[in-house]
C-alpha cells in the first residue's frame, strides 16, 4: 500500500514521516516519531489519554489520521516543559500528587493546558467540565482539580509580574 508523506511541526520542530492512509496520529507519534507520551487507553476517543493539540485545538489523537497532521502544528506533552523548566501544570501535578499510576497524566496535562491557555482563571466547575473528556481511574480527580487550580494561580501571578 502506498504511504502518505507528511510534513508537519511537532512541539515546534519540523518533522517528516510516511504513514499508511489509515494510520491514526497517535500511532504516527508513538511508532514513527518515538513520542510515547500520548497513550492509547481506548482507541475510540472516550478516555483522552491520547490528547494532543492540532493547531491549538485539543483532540484525541486516536481519532485523527496521521496524514491530517500535514502542514499543521502538533503539540504533545513532550513539548510542555521549557528546557529544564517544567510547565507550572507539570510541577503542580507532582506537588499535589495529582497522579498515581500516571498513565492518564499526559492527556490531562495537555487538556488542562488547553483550558488555561484560553481561560486563565477557571472556576472549579469549568475545570471539571474541561477535563471531563479525560478519564482517571486512580485519583477520583480531587488532586487533579486542585493541581490545575494551583497552576492557574501561579501562571496568573507570573503573568501579572511580567506586565
Amino acid at each position, binding site marked *: 500500500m502506498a504511504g502518505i508523506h507528511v510534513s508537519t511541526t511537532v512541539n515546534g520542530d519540523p518533522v517528516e514521516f510516511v504513514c499508511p492512509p489509515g494510520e491514526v496520529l497517535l500511532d504516527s507519534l508513538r511508532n514513527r516519531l518515538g513520542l510515547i507520551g500520548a497513550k492509547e487507553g481506548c482507541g475510540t476517543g472516550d478516555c483522552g489519554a491520547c490528547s494532543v493539540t492540532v493547531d491549538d485545538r485539543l483532540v484525541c489523537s486516536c481519532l485523527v489520521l496521521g496524514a491530517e497532521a500535514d502542514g499543521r502544528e502538533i503539540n504533545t506533552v513532550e513539548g510542555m516543559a521549557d528546557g529544564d523548566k517544567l510547565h507550572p501544570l507539570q510541577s503542580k501535578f507532582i*506537588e499535589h500528587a495529582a497522579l498515581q499510576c500516571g498513565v492518564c497524566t499526559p492527556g490531562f496535562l495537555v487538556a488542562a493546558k488547553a483550558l488555561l491557555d484560553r481561560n486563565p482563571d477557571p472556576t472549579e466547575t469549568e475545570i471539571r467540565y474541561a477535563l471531563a473528556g479525560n478519564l482517571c481511574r486512580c485519583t477520583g480527580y480531587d488532586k487533579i482539580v486542585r493541581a490545575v487550580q494551583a497552576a492557574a494561580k501561579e501562571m496568573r501571578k507570573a503573568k501579572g509580574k511580567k506586565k
Partner: protein
Amino acid sequence: MSLDHDTSYTNQDFKVVGSRPERPDGIDKVTGRARYGADAFAPGQLAAGVLRSPHAHAKIKKIDTSKAEKLTGVKAVITSKDLPDLTGGNRQQFDILENCMARDRALYDGHAVAAVAAIDADTVKAALKLIKVDYKVLPHVTDVDEAMKPDAPIVQPHLRTSGVPDAPDVPTNVHQRSQFGHGDIEAGFLEADVVIEKSFKTEQTHQGYIEPHACLATVGPDGSGELWVTTQGHYSYRNMCASLLGMDIAKLKVTSSEIGGGFGGKTHVWMEPLALALSRKANRPVKLVMTRDEVFRSTGPTCATSMDIKIGARRDGTITAASADLRYNDGAYPSIWGMLGAMTSFACYDIANVQSVAWDVLTNRSKVAAYRAPSAPMAAFGVESVMDLIADEIGMDPVDFRLKNCAKEGSRASYGPVYGPIGIEATLQAVKKHPHMKAKLGPNQGRGMACGFWFNFGGQTCSDLNIGVDGTVNLAIGTVDVGGSRASMSLIAAEELGIPYEQVKCNVADTGSLGHNDTTEGSRGTFSSGMATIFAARQAIGELRERAAKMWDISVDDVVWEEGEARATGIENSNLPPLSLREIAAKSPTTGGPIAGHNEVVADNAGVSFASHICDVEVDAETGATRVLRYTVVQDAGKAIHPTYVEGQFQGAAAQGIGWALNEEYIYGEDGRLQNPGFLDYRIPVCSDLPFIDTEILEIPNPNHPYGIRGVGETSIVPPLAAIGTAVSNAVGVRLDHVPMSPPRILAALKAHRAS
C-alpha cells in the same frame, strides 16, 4: 504467629516518615518519558493480535489457520495446539491455560481461540480474518441465579459442588459452598424485637484501569526469554508463564513496566503466555497490546451478585443475630470470590449469633479477577443497607446503632479470628463528630453513611539496599509501584538510616535481580516491602557499625547508630568524632567492600483495616440522575507513611465505589454477548461527576508491623455502594436494592413505589 521483630518502633516519633515529599518518578510521568506496557520496543519486533470467540458458549470443532499462515508478513499463528497441557493434572493451572487460549470449548464472549504475529498491525488484522473457526454453539447462562438452577446449561462439566455434605455426583455450576460465623442464629433471631430480611443484587463491574494489558515478549531457541509487561506481580507472572510454557523460571526475565492502573485486574496472566508462545514460534520479539474491547470482554471484572441479608435487633439497638446468603457469579472458572464475601460481610460488627453462607457459581462470563477489596463491597451493600433499615425501624441514629454493635479489640470476628487493636469504632466516632454530618440538606437530597472492612495481605517479600561510595542509597524492591510506593519506600529507608529522603533512590527490580516477591495485591505493597526495607536497612546499619568500628579500631559493641551517623560509646572513646554514613561509605572499598543490607521475609499479620464513609446526594426525580454533593472518607491507615498518597488511595477507592454504585455495569444480551465493552457505554466517573472527596486519616497502629502500618489501598471501595444506596433512598423515599442505581433503575423504583 507473632513475628520476631522489634515492635517498640510502633508509635515512635518519626523524622521523615509522615512527611509529603515529591515522588521520585514524578518528572518522568509528567513529561511523557515514563514507559508503560505498550511503550517498549525491540529490534525486529512483530505486531500481534488475538482472535476471540463471538459466542458465549460453543464447541470448537475445527480451526483452520492455513490461509492466515500463508499471508505475506505473517510470522507465527498459534492455537491451543501450540500450548500443550504441561500442567500435570493441576486443575487450577489448567484453568489458567485454558482461559488464555480456548481448547475444545469457548466458554464466554471474548475467549481467545487463536493468535497471530506479523510484521505490522494491518497484516495482523488481515490474518485474523483469514482464520476459520468452526463452532457449534451451545446453550449458555450468564445470570448467577439462573446458573444455580438444576436445568441450567453446564459451564464446566467436570465440576462437583464442594462444601455441601452428600452433594450429588452430577455436573453443576455451583463450585463451592462456604460458611462462616458462630453462635445460634435461630435462637438469636427469636431474641430480636425487630427482624428485617431483604434481597439485593449488584451488577458486574470492571477495574477499568486506563492502560490496557500490554507486553513485549522475546523467547529464543535456547529456551531463554524476556517479558516486559504491565503487571502487579512480575514474579508470579514469571512463574506462571514459565510453568505454562515449559520454561525454566530462572531463564525467563520479567520486567514490570510502569503500570497504568491494575486494581487487582493485573494480578492474573491473560495474554502474556500467548505473546511468549508467538515469540517462541517466530523467534522474534512480539508486542501484544489489548484493545479496550478486549480488556472488557476478556479480562476479569469482579462478580455480579445476588444475596439475602437478615438482621435482628432488640429495641435497645443490640443486634441479636445476622445472616447472609450470598451468590457470587465467578464467570467461567471456579474461584473463592463468594467465600471472601462471606468472610467480610459482618466483619465490622460484634454479633453473638452470625452466619454467612456463600455460593461460588460459574456462568458463561469472562473469568472473574480480583478488584480492590474483592467481594467485600457487594456483601457490604446488602449488610449496611439492612443495618440502616433496622436503625430506622428502632428509631436509632445509624451511627449510634453501628457504634453500639461495632467490633472492638478482643471481639471474635464473624470469619473466625479474635481482633487485635482495630479502628472501626474510631472511624465511627470521627464520622459522628465530622462537620459533614451537620451540612444542611435541601429538597431531593439525602445523606447516607456506611462502614467497610478489608483483611489486607502480607506475603513473601524481599528487598536489597545498596550504599554507594558517595553515601547515596539504592533500594531495590519487588512489589510494583502502583501509586507512589517508591516514595514511601524511600521515606522508610531514609527514616531507618537517618538520612534525607533525597539520598535514597528506590527502583522496582526485575525478576533476574531480586528474589521472589508476591504480587502487589491485598494492600500489601507498603506493608510488606516497607517491612523488608526496614529490616534490610537495619542489616545495613549493622554493617555500617562494623565498618566504623574497623575505621576506629574499636569493638563494634562500642558503636551505636544514631541520627544517620556512627557514634562511639564509652569514656575511652570520647575523643572519636562521629562518622557519617557518607564518610563510612567513602572508605568502604578498603574496609570490606560494598555496604548492603538484604531482607527476605514472609510478612504475616497484615492487620485488618476499617473505614466509614459519609455521602450526600441529590436525585433528579424526573430523570433519575444522581449527583454526589459531598463525600467524606474516614479510614484507619495504621501509620500513614506518605499521607498525600494515603489520601489518594482513599479518594480513588471512593470514586471507584461511586461509579459502581451509580453507573457501571456489564450488560449482557440474550445472546450472552457483552453489549457495552467500551468506555462510552461502560461509564466510569468523569471529573464533572464528582465533588472534592474529603479524607480523614486515622492512625491506630498495627502491632504486627515495626511502624504500625496497615494496608490502605482497598478498604475504601467497600462502603460507597451502601453509603450512596442509603443517601439515594433517603433522597427519594424508596429503598434501592439493586446496584448500580442508574437513572433507569431509580425511575423504575420510583414508579413501582408510586404504583404500590
